[in-house]
């Protein structure tokens, strides 16, 4: 299309990729942000929940304390929701002549990358916290002095999701401030 100086042949992959609308990239990024985060949170909750239920039959005292593991997993889903909302507020409409301008593409890719960052960081964080939570419940059932020590490990694990959120918040702020709405 006129107005863009792309070095590309008319049927190459780079042309095809560059012609994907930045709206698509943004939308997919937001979908991944919330979808994959929730996948990680759910995965973690079922891993820890099934062990917790079984262990609580013989040792009912562990139930209230070990809900913390479930709460840490849930926090991972909340991070995903927060980031999805932030990203969604950055979505702006542009006039059709500007769709393939460099700034528009940059904004689209930024939102896509943010979605991937936070989605996959939360996926592994949820898994990590879930597995540790399962071991925590089983150990607590045998020996209650172990609970706090394993909880420390879990706290380190839950920091992983937080890293993703921090990077995305900074990225979105610095990357998208250049693109102020012209319409």
């Amino acid at each position, binding site marked *: 299309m006129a107005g863009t100086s792309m070095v590309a042949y008319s049927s190459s992959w780079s042309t095809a990729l560059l012609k994907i609308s930045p709206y698509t990239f943004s939308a997919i990024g937001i979908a991944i942000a919330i979808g994959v985060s929730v996948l990680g949170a759910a*995965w973690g909750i*079922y*891993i820890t929940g*099934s*062990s*917790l*239920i*079984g*262990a609580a*039959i*013989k*040792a009912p005292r562990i139930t209230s304390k070990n809900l913390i593991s479930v709460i840490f997993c849930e926090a991972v889903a909340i991070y995903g929701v927060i980031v999805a909302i932030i990203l969604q507020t950055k979505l702006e409409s542009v006039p059709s002549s500007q769709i393939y301008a460099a700034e528009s593409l940059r904004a689209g890719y930024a939102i896509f990358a943010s979605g991937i960052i936070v989605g996959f960081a939360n996926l592994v964080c949820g*898994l990590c916290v879930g*597995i540790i939570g*399962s*071991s925590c*419940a*089983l150990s607590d*059932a*045998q020996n209650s002095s172990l609970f706090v020590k394993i909880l420390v490990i879990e706290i380190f694990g839950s920091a992983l999701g937080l890293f993703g959120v921090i990077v995305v918040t900074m990225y979105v702020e610095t990357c998208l401030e250049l693109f102020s709405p012209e319409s």
Partner: protein
Amino acid sequence: MYGFEAMTFNIHGGYLEAIVRGHRAGLLTAADYNNLCQCETLDDIKMHLSATEYGPYLQNEPSPLHTTTIVEKCTLKLVDEYKHMLCQATEPLSTFLEYITYGHMIDNVVLIVTGTLHERDVQELLEKCHPLGMFDSIATLAVAQNMRELYRLVLVDTPLAPYFSECITSEDLDDMNIEIMRNTLYKAYLEDFYKFCQKLGGATAEIMSDLLSFEADRRAVNITINSIGTELTRDDRRKLYSNFGLLYPYGHEELAVCEDIDQVRSAMEKYPPYQSIFSKLSYGESQMLDKAFYEEEVKRLCLAFEQQFHYGVFFAYMRLREQEIRNLMWISECVAQNQKSRVHDSVVFIF
């Protein structure tokens, strides 16, 4: 994929694994055994056991107690726990749990056949069978005259059917052949269980192969020692050894030609895990060998609990419970016969 079981194990096995670990916490400790060893009568034993998890099972028994009653009620507790786990399990865990009981099935079959040979009453024999190894039509075993009939009438419908292919001969059942049949069946069972665990893969395969190899090696040593001085030929002896384990194949070659215990000892001392067992025995003594093997087994079974997300914990729990029931039986017998000085000869502490 080994190492990533944690991600999917809890879908089907998380609840049951947590339950079996809860049961493990109820195994008797050294303090309990010390209390029990100091009892004077069987009623004292019942009183001490009522403070443990065996309480509900023993409290309705009238005095005077017999040792067989205590053992029966404790076994009943194990069977209840097993049945609860089995009905909650899905494949492949349910198949794994069923595999654990086939050893008892084999023992029950041999018990009934031997008892019939010695003209015992079938009902009396059925009461002596281990409850974990019961199956329908077990009473029909008393009718069979030789192995072919045994297979055709009864065993073809049981899970033991595939183990019989090496055993079917038209020979009549006598004591020698029955022992050979028992060991052949057990060999086929161990190999089948081993292959099943290898197919499951991951941590289950690794832990179970260690436990089953120890079992196979222990049986090889016991077969060797028990067949010294009998008519069993070397080739027959070699056919009874399983084809896996630490001793396979070179240890089996050496064991097959052993003619007394010292030769067995020198054959086993080449393997470091068994060398430590045999070093506990002085020369010429074999009574403590059983206890030494049980101690080693208990040590390995307890190690199976160190790892999460595998099926070995179920096998380890069942075996530890059986060891505990053996301990209780020994203590009860010693107390009942007033031989308390010999109590520590055969009690293996689990914790």
